[in-house]
């Protein structure tokens, strides 16, 4: 082969290079790819689908599909007696089932006008705040996992197991607790519960502070989470945000403070707020809320009033078993409650509690029948998850993953 001067001057990969310049001008820079995030993507904790339009790493737009675990709670609730709806509320936000359970009980108590004793209120507060800790622990440790720090997750899950053990002492179940009854609790706190709670209150802050020191001021974690998925307070309100996600955007709306239920007005606690509404703020708000929850539990436990652990509403509260065997009246009540034949007043009531993710509301319309005529749940996740495309537009894919986990979208609550 004879080389000429021209050949030497000519660029070696002439054709390819021209093709490459063409690509970089027209296609590579302006290339828009479609990325299907979900429904079974390891980075989405739950079953959600997001069809992203991405330019390289940058997200241009996102389209959501939900409803993959739609279970028709509201339709089931129209067929179940009042006391059988409690297990349904468990499965809405299964990270903090007791809050939902008690929210439902309080709704029915509001409807029937039951008089609830202080002791029941305080007992409920203890269980609900434990549930809030459990909920926030899952969310915050999973933010850690998504930034690449698995240690925190394995560490706090050990403590979370202790909360499960406390639930077990009260109701026998771990996750879907079905705790309490309409009117109070099925049994008083056992001596073992007192022992375990004291132990938990002693050991948990230490472990929690260690977890906090792993992430909260960690340079890598902060760089990774700050400005990831921010939302302004104004937009958050328009999108119906509630709970820690709204507070991270700087708005101090908390149902516990605004419309106190279950004697929350007795306790001294602060409502932490963030500034930017980004992933880091959401993380920090949840961290502080865990501390405040501990404070509330301590106050409630130290001032636990004496009294009965349930209200005096024989038509709704199951009588003790030995009474059922030996007392005609108790037997009748037992039968009526179990068969769901207790008359309830006709009425319409809305009651809301501060759940793990925000305002969990129950809109109950009763026509006096054995089951509600209509029961609508306000599921906070369902309402605020709409904002997700707006929050991740212009962000990178890895930030989108973080945003999703910091919003703490629970599939059961999302899809109803």
């Amino acid at each position: 082969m004879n080389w000429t001067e021209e050949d030497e001057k000519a660029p070696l990969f002439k054709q390819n290079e021209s093709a490459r310049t063409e690509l970089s001008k027209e296609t590579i820079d302006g290339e828009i790819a479609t990325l299907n995030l979900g429904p079974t993507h390891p980075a989405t904790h739950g079953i959600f689908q997001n069809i992203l339009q991405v330019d390289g790493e940058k997200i241009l737009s996102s389209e959501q599909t939900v409803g993959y675990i739609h279970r028709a709670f509201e339709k089931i609730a129209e067929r179940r007696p009042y006391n059988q709806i409690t297990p349904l509320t468990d499965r809405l936000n299964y990270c903090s089932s007791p809050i939902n359970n008690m929210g439902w009980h309080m709704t029915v108590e509001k409807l029937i006008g039951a008089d609830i004793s202080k002791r029941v209120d305080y007992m409920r507060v203890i269980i609900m705040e434990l549930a809030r800790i459990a909920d926030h622990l899952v969310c915050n440790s999973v933010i850690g996992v998504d930034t690449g720090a698995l240690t925190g997750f394995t560490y706090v899950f050990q403590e979370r197991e202790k909360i499960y053990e406390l639930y077990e002492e009260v109701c026998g179940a771990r996750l879907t607790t079905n705790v309490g009854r309409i009117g109070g609790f099925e049994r008083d706190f056992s001596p073992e519960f007192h022992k375990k709670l004291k132990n938990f209150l002693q050991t948990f802050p230490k472990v929690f502070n260690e977890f906090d020191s792993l992430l909260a001021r960690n340079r890598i974690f902060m760089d990774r989470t700050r400005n990831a998925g921010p939302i302004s307070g104004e937009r958050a309100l328009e999108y119906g945000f509630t709970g820690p996600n709204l507070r991270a955007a700087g708005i101090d709306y908390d149902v516990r403070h605004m419309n106190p239920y279950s004697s929350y007005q007795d306790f001294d606690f602060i409502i932490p707020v963030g500034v930017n509404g980004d992933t880091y703020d959401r993380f920090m708000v949840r961290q502080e809320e865990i501390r405040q929850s501990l404070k509330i539990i301590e106050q409630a436990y130290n001032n636990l009033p004496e009294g009965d652990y349930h209200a005096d509403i024989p038509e709704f509260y199951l009588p003790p078993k030995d009474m059922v065997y030996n007392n005609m009246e108790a037997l009748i009540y037992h039968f009526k409650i179990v068969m769901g034949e207790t008359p309830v007043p006709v009425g319409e009531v809305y009651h809301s509690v501060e759940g793990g993710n925000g305002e969990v509301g129950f809109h109950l319309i009763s026509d006096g029948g054995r089951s509600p005529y209509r029961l609508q749940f306000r599921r906070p996740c369902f309402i605020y998850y709409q904002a997700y495309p707006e929050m991740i537009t212009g962000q990178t894919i890895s930030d989108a993953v973080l945003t999703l986990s910091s919003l703490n979208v629970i599939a059961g609550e999302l899809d109803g």
Partner: protein
Amino acid sequence: MGKIEDLQVINGEGYQLTRLEKVLGTARANSVWPLPFATSCCGIEYMATMGSNYDLARFGMERMSFSPRQADLLIVAGTISKKLGPVLKQVYEQMAEPKWVLSVGACACSGGIFDTYSVLQGIDRIIPVDVYVPGCPPRPEQIIDGIIRIHELVKNEPLRRRYSDEYKHLLKDYNIETNDPEQSDK
């Protein structure tokens, strides 16, 4: 767990005799790669099972395989709605043989308390299931028990099972296309 005695080894001077099936079974059983298909409440209990207290890694399941192509065991934990059914079936079809399915929780096994218009009444209507774990949700101990039973199945599976007519017939019942190794070899 895979003890060497289970292999029924005949030891001699300078040689060991056992059945290939047993060796392969033990090897597979101790390195099952699970694909967690966790949708709802049971997924949280599954997370607890993976966590440090129950520690699924003890059973050779340290690595969660989120890609169906590299997974051996499909763990379906939680409610599967009719909308999600085709997705689950596709995930199952994408897994390479041999594959096993563990159905965790009442919803996955039978629809559970959700006997409604939108919920699939048991995943065994769309894919074959090897082990069912009841409970709503099952405790981590129960999930571990289910996994140990899967291990037993894996360990004792005959090498020819996946080629057998019964197995092909089973998949045909579910309208699942077999990527038959014998067919593709030809």
